[in-house]
């Protein structure tokens, strides 16, 4: 009870966040797949070095929204985006934006682990090689620190040159995270990173997420409300493409402002 009041008092106003504390500034974002509108004028500010969770029933547009932050939606034919997404005070939907550079600054991890069928090492240095880094020592150092940061180093340090496909599912997912943070991105997007994993691997990844926010801004999509409550600082609830409520995680789960949020978190649908 005391705890609740404490957090309530220190609750930050997410709309009034100072510009230098904002990692992603979404302004009036509307997205269409062909004729179908998937996101309805969404505006939100995602703070730096914190974990922001996106929750909502499946099909509500969580993946679509998170994919707007590194423009993965560009690959879908018939996808149209209006409004703007600002990262570092630049609109990433500006026509002069270099999408490849953007994606190396905004890493993304998908629902199912998708390591390349090459060695553990080659997976981690893939993005570095794309950037033209070929010096062995640089690659080795970056690979090691990425694997350490992804809490995977101790498990794979003796099998760096074995196929990544020999790792377990949880290890593969951490490898994919390592591969993204090897590029030292500003933001890490995680789209249901644990939904294909067992509980123990899930726990490891959640602990990892906690340590990641020191260095990175993390946006995580999850359909698991306990997970959102455990790992995130603020939570956005999406419903049918609309941002229904976005506030401090404690607040959202204990004192939701909106009727729909309450119905969702109390399990009346979803």
């Amino acid at each position, binding site marked *: 009870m005391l705890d609740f009041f404490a957090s309530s008092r220190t609750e930050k106003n997410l709309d009034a966040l100072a510009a230098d504390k904002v990692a992603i500034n979404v302004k009036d974002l509307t997205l269409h797949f062909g004729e179908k509108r998937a996101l309805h004028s969404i505006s939100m500010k995602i703070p730096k070095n914190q974990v922001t969770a996106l929750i909502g029933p499946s099909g509500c547009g969580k993946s679509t929204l998170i994919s707007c932050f590194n423009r993965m939606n560009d690959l879908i034919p018939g996808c149209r985006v209006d409004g703007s997404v600002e990262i570092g005070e630049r609109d990433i939907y500006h026509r002069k934006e270099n999408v490849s550079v953007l*994606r*190396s600054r905004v*890493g*993304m*991890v998908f629902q199912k682990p998708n390591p*390349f*069928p090459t060695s553990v090492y080659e997976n981690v240095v893939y993005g570095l090689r794309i950037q033209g880094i070929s010096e062995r020592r640089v690659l080795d150092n970056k690979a090691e620190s990425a694997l350490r940061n992804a809490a995977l180093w101790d498990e794979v340090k003796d099998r760096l040159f074995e196929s990544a496909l020999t790792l377990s599912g949880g290890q593969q997912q951490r490898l994919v995270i390592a591969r993204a943070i090897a*590029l030292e991105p500003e933001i890490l997007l995680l789209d249901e990173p644990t939904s294909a994993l067992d509980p123990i691997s899930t726990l490891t990844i959640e602990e990892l997420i906690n340590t990641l926010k020191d260095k990175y801004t993390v946006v995580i999509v999850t359909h698991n409300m306990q997970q959102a409550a455990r790992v995130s600082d603020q939570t956005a609830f999406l419903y049918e493409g609309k941002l229904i409520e976005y506030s401090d995680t404690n607040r959202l789960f204990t004192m939701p402002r909106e009727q729909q949020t309450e119905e969702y978190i109390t399990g009346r649908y979803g």
Partner: protein
Amino acid sequence: MFRLTINQRQSESLSVMLFASAMAISIIAIASLLGVILVKGTGHFWPTKIQLVEMNAGQEVKKFYGQLVSESSYSDRSEITKQYRMTDWDRLGFSSVYIDDASNSMEGSYPVDVALLTLRSGSQVLAKPVSLISEHKAQPLSSFDQLLVEVAANRNQVEFILNNQIASLNSQLQTVDIAQEETRHQQLIDEYDQARHKANELKAALSSYLLIVEDALGTVYELPLNDIERYDYVNQYSLWGKFKYSLRSVWQFISESPKQLYASGGVFPAIFGTVVMVLVMTIFVTPLGILVAIYLHEYAAQNRLTTLVRISINNMAGVPSIVYGVFGLSFFVYELGAGIDNWFFKETLPAPTFGAPGLFWASLTMAMLTLPVVVVATEEGLRRVPDSLRMGSYALGATQFETIRKTVIPMASPGIMTGIILAIARGAGEVAPLILVGAVKFAPTLPIDNEYPYIHFERQFMHLGVTVFDGAFQGQLAGSGSNMMFAACLFLLLIVVLLNIVAQVVRQRLRRQYNALLEH
């Protein structure tokens, strides 16, 4: 009700029998195909025993040494016709004898002292060696091997003198200024005369080595040892001896040029031509096919137009190959080739350079013919690369081209390999279009040699498939009753089967790799 069940069961077992017999017929067809090619093909290399054949021809009794080529019986006649090959002493080669009345010929014996003599010209002679003569002295038959070695050494020496010493002296003589260096000129002329003299002496000595042989009627002939390549007492051979003989024949077959219009020698130029043509074809078709497939699968919008293109490419695989031949001849050779000649080889016209069938056009035609194979297999390989990997690559900042180069192509490479191997198998086995665009029965030169520019794209070439095709029209038979056609056919079959097995293995590996990817 019960009756109906029985009827059903009857018709059920009837249809099972229908399927089973169709299956059996196919198996028999395939087995007999392989059997005939295998037996006839290997028969080409296996030594046939030499018979002393006696036959009544009117009053006189005819005798000859012969090798049984074939036995055939005709339904309207009761007797068996036997075909032998025997020595034609007038031209030192084989001719065929048919003996169709079994009663006329007596069952022959197999004399152990008769040998199959293979001459350097490629001809073969069946005769009984009697004695040897070297330097006008008779030698025992036991020195046969040793004398053959001696003769070969002498022959090499003569060839060395003619090809190296005399040739080099000749060129030196041409550059010497007679007025300026009179002594040197004289010296060279002396050396030249000496070499010539030496060569002539050796040649004379060579022709004094003789083998005396006897035919079945006791007539005696002399054969210069210099003309003899080897001798085989095939009737004395054990199983191992026959096996060694066969191995030698196989080696000869793949390493020598055809002799006596394919009656003997080997098919080396045809194998060589096939390999070169297929290589050049692969160089054309591989990049083109891969690029087309990547464009279709990775870049092009998936709409009706791409579907149409895909269907057309698939249908190209079904176009009769002769159509490609006709296209190659009329477009590549007569249009493009003539154009090239007009632009670049004007000085040699009207003799065509590229305006005639040749290696380049044949390879290009075959590349067109095999393009669908490569495209289809490559697309199949691309389809097996999961989209999640493409996404993973994009999410790490790779462009589409980098993603294709670094992830998609390596993962699709087993599929690409399969396509290339299937294309090679197709290219090696095709005949009809090749005859129109450059493959010939006999080409005097190889498409690659040590003459500038080393690879001669405009030359005509020999091809295994064409050799097989041509073999069907020649009557010349080897000792075993199987002509070269079957042996060449066996080789072709082996090559193609081998390539298909490799393709199969590669495809299997791809599948396993892909499954490992899906497991987790």
